[in-house]
């Protein structure tokens, strides 16, 4: 199967200096939904910017639909559709005008343009609102208009940067159906997300990005299968007891790995049902009060923790923290 997207050793540093991409490589087969999964600031959006010709990497190569992104950006632009993280909708223009302009910039005109615009307005459920200013649209309508604008020229590869961020849960599920439908029509789709659930639900193939590198890749099932066994999550009731808890659990034969994240303790175990009593017993013996204990099958969060060495939430928080300091 031919690759619709190939990224090789992409590197990019922003002044600061912030390393956005640190030798990132991956490929996406034709007709797949491929998810770049990672916390904010992992380098997902920068990757999309490089692949969609919006920025140039410091080094590395990339091909989209077989075309070299750096050598022939204009040819790449003909075959890609892009839905950015920020909505690219012009609020001061009608929904229809937004779509028409996007088509015109792709060189589509006249009857062909009118027909295509009608078709997309219909498909995205915007036909009734076509003559309204886009500024009056709801969040879901804007997102659908965004996607319609990315599709107006019938691209071969569609980039969706955080397509469902900020959307209500029901609208998100509807958006997932829409994305699957596009894949079934033969489109290759690269989407970025920081929702584990979204990658799990939607993607044929996932790459986990952390600090500008791909740390793991495969299907959701493959990634989870790497982590045989379950995870026991324990919440410590008293502050300061985490270190003792870690020590007590690390000594247990049933526990393979312990990770402390604030007051939450995550222990990877073989069979959760047999390990849970042992875990609670060990904590009780060590005098660690427990507020809550749960057991779970491996999730993508566990996969992320294993490869990135920190939990997903922790990565998001550290990013937010550094952002506030810088501001």
């Amino acid at each position, binding site marked *: 199967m031919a690759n619709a997207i190939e990224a090789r050793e992409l590197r990019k540093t922003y002044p600061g200096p912030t390393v956005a991409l640190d030798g990132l490589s991956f490929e996406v087969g034709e007709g797949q939904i491929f998810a770049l999964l990672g916390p904010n600031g992992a380098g997902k959006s920068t990757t999309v*910017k490089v692949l969609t010709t*919006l*920025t140039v990497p410091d080094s590395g190569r990339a091909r989209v639909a077989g075309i070299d992104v750096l050598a022939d950006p*204009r040819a790449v632009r003909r075959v890609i559709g892009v839905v950015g993280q920020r909505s690219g*909708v012009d609020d001061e223009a009608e929904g229809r005008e937004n779509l028409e302009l996007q088509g015109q910039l792709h*060189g589509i005109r006249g009857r062909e343009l009118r027909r295509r615009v009608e078709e997309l307005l219909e498909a995205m459920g915007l036909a009734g609102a076509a003559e309204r200013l886009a500024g009056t649209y709801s969040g879901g309508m804007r997102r659908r208009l965004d996607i319609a604008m990315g599709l107006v020229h019938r691209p071969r590869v569609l980039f969706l940067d955080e397509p469902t961020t900020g959307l209500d849960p029901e609208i998100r599920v509807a958006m997932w159906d829409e994305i699957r439908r596009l894949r079934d029509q033969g489109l290759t789709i690269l989407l970025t997300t920081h929702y584990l659930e979204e990658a799990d639900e939607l993607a044929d193939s996932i790459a986990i990005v952390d600090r500008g590198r791909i740390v793991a890749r495969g299907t959701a099932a493959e990634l989870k299968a790497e982590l045989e066994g379950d995870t026991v999550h324990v919440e410590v009731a008293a502050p300061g007891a985490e270190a003792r808890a870690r020590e007590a659990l690390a000594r247990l034969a049933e526990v393979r790995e312990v990770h402390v994240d604030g007051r939450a303790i995550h222990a990877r175990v073989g069979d959760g049902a047999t390990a849970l009593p042992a875990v609670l017993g060990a904590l009780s013996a060590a005098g660690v009060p427990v507020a809550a204990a749960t057991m779970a099958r491996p999730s993508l969060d566990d996969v992320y923790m294993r490869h990135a060495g920190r939990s997903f939430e922790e990565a998001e928080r550290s990013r937010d923290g550094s952002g506030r300091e810088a501001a």
Partner: protein
Amino acid sequence: MGVLLNCYDTTRRWTLALLRQPWFVAITLIQPMIWLLLFGALFSSVVDIPGFAGDNYKTFLAPGIVVMNALFSAGWNGMGMINDLEKGIMDRFLVTPVSRAPLIVGGIAQSALSIVIQSLIVVAVALATGATFPGGPLGVLAMIATAVLLAAAVAGLSQAVALTARKEETLIGFVQFMALPLTFLSGAFMQLSLAPHWIETVARYNPVNWAVAAAREAVAAHPDWGYVLARMGLLLALAAACLWLAVRAFRAYQRSA
């Protein structure tokens, strides 16, 4: 051909946006109106200075105000670009195969259109308050065309600044720093032969003064059209250079994005 069609497309977008916010035309008119009416009254006895050609200061001042309005109005043109950059609208355009020039030209065309409307209002108010345009409608038309050429250059430059700095503060600084000094270093308010020699020298290289001089000549009773067209030619060349600069600024944007 495709480039020209795309220029039409982006111009249509900006024109529709302008027609949806007609008050925008009025707001930027407030300042030149104050200049026209207050300066016109305050300095009405300038005409008594020995060596001042003409006997009506408002008639002298009106072309200067038309040009000044074009300068300020076009200076703010980059605000639309900053908004497009912030909202992600420009990125959406940049991922299409469109040439970069139409992405600049649409905003310039909007600026030109609003300046034509504003200039006609300035002319009407000037006429109503005692100014005359001896050159008649043709002269007024040439005056407005001159103002539009200057505006095209300034709007292009403003968009180049917007693409490079991507901050409203920087653009505000650019307009403040550029527009008033260039106006006062021109013959907009005062006959240059009565100004200090150094100002007269600086004005010779000041595009705002090219526009003021051409506009004033165009509405005179017997215009020297060669003089007017030569300056319009200079302004056209400047506008082309500024457009080129703005298109180049997309590269800087792409490097830093």
